[in-house]
Structures are given as C-alpha cells and as structure tokens.
C-alpha cells in the first residue's frame, strides 16, 4: 500500500509515542521533525490512515483543560506496522544506494 511522506511521519510519531499518542504530542513530534502541520491537516491525514486501515483510534477521557472535549488516542494496526516497516526499509535501501553511488563517484 502506498503511503505519502506526511502519512509516514504520522505513523512514525504514533509508533514512537506508544500509548500516549493523541493529537497534541503527535503534532509536537512532527514539529520536532521539522513539519509544522495544522490541526486540520493532521486530522485529515489521520482520517486517511484510518480509512486505509493503518491506524485505529479510541476516544479517551474528557478533561476541563481541553474544554470538555475528549482525546482521540491513536494506535498502529498490524497493517500499519507492516506498511511503516516497508516504507522504512525502502528508505534505508535508498540511503545505502546513495552512499554506494557517492563511493563509486
């Protein structure tokens, strides 16, 4: 299954955050990776990943800090894990190929 660059980053952020993955820390993680995305962009991407079956979500607790709005916790599915691993290995191979090409030059 083809996944875009932002989708891959979101998958990586969710994977690295583990059980605490919801909108705010995911956006912070993306910001640290140099991708400052808006809330709308993040949730559009999340919706797309959910439709592809790569992540699943559950509604969390309602807090007053969030104005009585629930958190949406995100988790990778098995397919999401496989998809991310495939994209990661493809990127590693490409990186190795670049290094080899540089060495040959």
């Amino acid at each position: 299954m083809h996944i875009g660059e932002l989708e891959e980053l979101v998958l990586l952020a969710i994977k690295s955050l583990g059980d605490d993955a919801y909108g705010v820390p995911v956006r912070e993680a993306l910001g640290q990776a140099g991708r400052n995305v808006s809330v709308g962009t993040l949730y559009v991407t999340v919706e797309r990943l959910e439709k592809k079956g790569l992540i699943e979500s559950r509604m969390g607790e309602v807090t007053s800090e969030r104005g009585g709005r629930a958190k949406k916790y995100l988790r990778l599915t098995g397919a999401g894990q496989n998809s991310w691993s495939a994209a990661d290995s493809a990127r590693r191979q490409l990186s190795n190929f670049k290094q080899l090409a540089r060495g040959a030059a």
Partner: protein
Amino acid sequence: MIKSIKSALRNSYLSIVIGTPETTSQTEKHNCFLQEFAHRPEAEQLRIRWRIWSFIFVILPMVAEAVSNSILVRSGQNTGALGNGWPTQLSLILALIMPNCDYSFARTVMKQRDAASQQSHSRVAEFLLQFFLPPAQSESAIGDLNEGFAKRRQIWNLRYAQIWYWWHTIRSLSTIFDALIEQFVKWGIVGAIAAWIRRYL
C-alpha cells in the same frame, strides 16, 4: 457587505429570469421587475417556502442532535458530537430529566462545558471548526486546540493566546477549503464547458 451580497444575488437571479442587463434601460427593467415581483403572490409563497425549508434543514436537525446527544449523556457514553451551542445545553437539560440518567457524568460534562466557556477563546473560531471539520475529527481537533490555548494562556497574555487560536483555526480551515475549492474549480470548469457546448452546438 450584506447589501452587495444581496445585490449580487438579486442580479444573478434576475439574469436567470429575464437575461443579463447590458444597457441602462435593461437595468431599469430589472428594477421594475423586482418591485413588481415583490407584490406578487408568488413572492409571498417563496417567503413561506423559505421559512419552511430553513425550519426543516436548520431547526429540526439541531433538535434531533440535542435529543440524540441527551440519550448518549444519559447512558454515560462519551459524547463525541457535543458542541457549545444551544443544542448542547438542551441535550444536557434533557439528559438530566430523562429517567435512569447517569447524573454524575451529565454534571461533569456540564461543569466542564461551563469551565470551557470561561477560557475566553473565540467561540466563533470554535463554531467554525465544529461546522467545517468532519464530525469524526472535530471533537478531538477542537480539544487539541483548546489544550494548546490553555498552555499558551499560562505563558502568554490572553490576546496572544487568542491570536494563536485564530491562526490555527484559519490554517485548519484552509486545509478543508483547499479540498473544497479544488472540487469547486473542477466542477466549475466542467460546467463552463457544458454551458459552452450548449450555447454553440
């Protein structure tokens, strides 16, 4: 602003009914038609029809939303679709008077909504997000923005925090509008081609 919108709507409607005005006499003809039309029985029928349709499409869905949310609150379920408008207030009141209501949950939700209204971020921005974001995502997206606002409120003054909230609202809406505009342009081009074919072939 409203006058110009009204004028544009009137002109587009009249151009459909009696053609596009090209000369002053035709513009006068438009105005005469409008004045005459306002006194016709069809105009009154149109007004009544407008009121009925707005009731069906605006008021009834809001009442339905309030009733469905009140059932969720009553059973102690997480209410993903709760907003801050009058349907939410109505749903919480309905939930409290329903039999076998989970009172503690309903009161918790009500208190948190009240606390949220004291935070002083823009209700309009929140409404826009609630309205335009997909329903499955709006609850958590607004929650994330509220959380960010609360954090920034502790560091910055209220004005900067409000600007931050509005900035992120506009950025989020622009994502949605980009997709809408893309669709609009696509169908606009299709419509223009269809109109051209109809006119010249």
